[in-house]
């Protein structure tokens, strides 16, 4: 399946990427599995998305937990904890 991934704030800068379209391998069908998949890129990806690091994930503009299912054409966003107000 294919998803669109958006990155914001510090993660956008660290990854040097605003957004990407990604074809996910079979079996990568939850938020948690997607994060594992991205972590395998190594470097800053492994570091920023590693255990103990604070980040949030939204699917189709709603906050999502690691066990949330992904569907094709989903919009997934990965970002640091929010700091507005």
């Amino acid at each position, binding site marked *: 399946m294919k998803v669109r991934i958006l990155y914001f704030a510090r993660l956008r800068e660290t990854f040097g990427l605003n957004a990407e379209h990604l074809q996910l391998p079979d079996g990568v069908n939850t938020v948690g599995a997607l994060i594992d998949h991205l972590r395998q890129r190594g470097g800053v990806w492994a570091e920023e998305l590693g255990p103990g690091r*604070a980040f949030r994930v939204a699917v189709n503009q*709603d906050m999502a937990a690691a066990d949330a299912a992904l569907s094709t054409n989903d919009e997934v966003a990965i970002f640091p904890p929010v700091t507005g107000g």
Partner: protein
Amino acid sequence: MKVQVQIEPFDLNAEVAALQTAGVGAVASFVGVVRDDGEGLAALTLEHYPGMTERALERILVRARERWGFIDATIIHRVGELAPGEPIVLVAVAAAHRGEAFAACEFIMDYLKTEAPFWKKEFGEAGARWVDARVSDQAAAARWGGP
């Protein structure tokens, strides 16, 4: 109920006046300001997630109205570059009585701080840095006992 994300400043008096409809006996408003931390903050920029931001703020208003039963409410949050002393966010709640207006205003701000996708980056003498989320903000939202 109104939600706006904008670069321009807002007019507090106009926003409060717009909420004064039939049955309103109290309007509580909160204005958040870019704090001059005394450590050479020159400016900050606010980034957000267009689309999700509005959805998140609207959801907070719906939840607040279910809980406090107020008549109307407005949230305006600014984005882009802001200098110390500039207003950054407005929450105004119109209700029959002050109790629910005060409480809802605080409830809305507490959840805005922890759920709305905004991020601050500070520019100062020491360079640029992304502001870290505060544990105390999580605690402030958690005290309402919500999800």
